Each structure stands twice: as structure tokens, then as C-alpha cells.
């Protein structure tokens, strides 16, 4: 099982990779309170950037776990599709549960 800290580190690696490739407009810090999607989201992570981030994260998660894992937003505890705000901390908790 991946710890929350390990999940945040994986997210940071993913974000840094996307920044280096020019997919993201600037650096994004994967800290627990960082808003990845919704009101208050980091300006470097637009909607298309968010989709790309999730796909890249899925690939890295699958590679590290050896399982073909998918991140489905509606499966995330603490994420409300009707008021969609996703923080890095909530996503990290979900990644931990996916790898449990």
C-alpha cells in the first residue's frame, strides 16, 4: 500500500514531468491543500492540463503497483461531483486506497 506521502511524491513527480514537457504552464506543488480541480485551482493546471495529469498519474501508478489502475473521480471519498473541488491531499488518500 502506498502511503499518503508516497502518493504526494508520485503526484509531484508527475506534475514536474508535465511542467518540463510544457504541458503545464508553470510549476504546481503537490501539497495536501493544493487545489487541483475546481474553484481556486492552481492557474497552471487548466482543465486539459488536469486531464493529462490524471492520465499520466494513472500510468505511473500502474507502473509502480504492477496493476492496471484507473482513477475515477466519482470513486474518490471526499469528492462531490456536484461541487467539484479536488485537493492533492484527497487525491493522495485515494491513491493510497487504490493500492491497498
Amino acid at each position: 500500500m502506498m502511503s499518503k506521502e508516497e502518493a504526494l511524491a508520485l503526484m509531484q513527480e508527475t506534475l514536474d514531468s508535465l511542467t518540463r514537457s510544457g504541458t503545464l504552464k508553470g510549476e504546481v506543488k503537490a501539497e495536501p491543500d493544493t487545489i487541483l480541480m475546481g474553484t481556486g485551482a492552481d492557474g497552471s493546471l487548466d482543465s486539459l492540463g488536469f486531464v493529462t495529469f490524471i492520465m499520466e498519474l494513472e500510468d505511473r501508478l500502474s507502473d509502480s503497483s504492477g496493476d492496471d489502475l484507473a482513477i475515477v473521480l466519482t470513486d474518490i471519498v471526499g469528492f462531490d461531483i456536484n461541487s467539484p473541488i479536488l485537493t492533492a491531499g484527497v487525491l493522495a488518500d485515494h491513491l493510497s486506497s487504490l493500492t491497498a
Partner: protein
Amino acid sequence: MADTAENIPVAVITGSSRGLGRAMAEHFLAKGYAVAGCSRGDATIEHAAYHHTALDIGDEADVTAWAKSVRRNLKRADVVIANAGLARAALLLSMTPGEVLNDFMRVNFAGVFYTLREFSKVMMRGDGGRVIAISSTMVPLSQDGTAVYSATKAGVTSMTKVLARELAPQGITCNVIAPAMMRTDATAELAKDGDWEQRMLALQTFPRIIEMEEICHAADFLVSDKARSITGQVVYIGVVD
């Protein structure tokens, strides 16, 4: 699914075992594309660059797994053609069972939604791309007995137009081809019903069977660089909207 060289363009075509899907798959293979196709059953195309997956297009998990497989093995999706769909004889709306509604919504609408959702993500990782959804001239013709079919195809058109706006920043175009009557297994079945074929042809601006080759030519243009600024459009073939 075998890997393919990363420099070969990949066309993803749903419903590629027969009818228009098969014709388009063979057309893109002849153009030098690798083709990832799907249908409920086994492959009907034998070609080194053809990669078939048997799945239920209305099943979200099936389509998601297929897109992942294409992304992992073929690495890219340059062209996506959402073609799979039902075309069956139906009743007047007042007599149409809910089961028919559900079948059409599942395959014609949800199937296209899952296809476009999953493969647009694959496409976003590349350098542009072309999405083509297959609709029907039954949408503007509003013919008796096509309430559910036409509604699902109208939904496909609206969905594709929204996607066109969403993917424009990525250099991806999304268009619709809406052909009039073609000679397919489905229309052959419908044509067994007396004068159905003649009645349908009489509604068309060009009252003749549309050849699949004509649709492939329209697709050729939409996937070409010449059409890089054309997005969110519907190309009707055989009728005036």
C-alpha cells in the same frame, strides 16, 4: 494486441466488422494507417496492421479497457471514428417500447460518449488529431418511426460539437459525417419491408444509395491537413439539411 511502430498513424474505428466501419477500416489500412477496430464479435479483416478487440461498445468498462490497450500498445490515436451504432426498424413513438429506447441510448449514444471520452484522452497526448462521429440524415429529415434513432444521432452531433470546442486548444478537430442511405446489413434488413427503401430514397436530395467510398472520401478530407481549421461541422451526404 501487438505493438506497432510509433511513426505509423493510428486510426481507431468502432463497429469495424461490417458495413461502413469495415469499409472505413479497409480504407485507412490502404492509406497506410494502423487500425484499431472493435465489434461485438471476431475480426472480419485480416491485415498485419489491423488490431481487433471484441467488446460491447455500450459497456463503459469495455471501452475504457480498450482505449488503455490501444494507448499502451499502439501508443497513439491520430484519427477516431465513432461509427458503431444500431439501425433497426422501429415503431411510431407512441408504440415504441422502453427497451428499444434503452438499446439505442446504450449503443448509439453512450457508446459514442465512451469512445470519444476515452480516445480524446489518448489523442490529447499527441500532436493534434481528428475525431469523426457518424450520424445520419434522419436527424434533419425527422421521419416517422425514427424518434429514438434520430434523437440518439442528434445527441451525437451535439456531443461532437461540444467536444470540438473543448479540444480545439489541442489542435484536435471534431466533425460529424451524416450519410443518407447506404447498402449495409441493417438497411438490407429494413429493405425487406415492402417499399421502405424507395420511400427513404425519395426523401433524399440525391435519391440513390450512397456508396461507402463517398463517405471515405469525406473522411479523407476531414482528416487531412487542409481541414485543420474545420471543426464542429456536420457533413451531410445525399441530402440538403
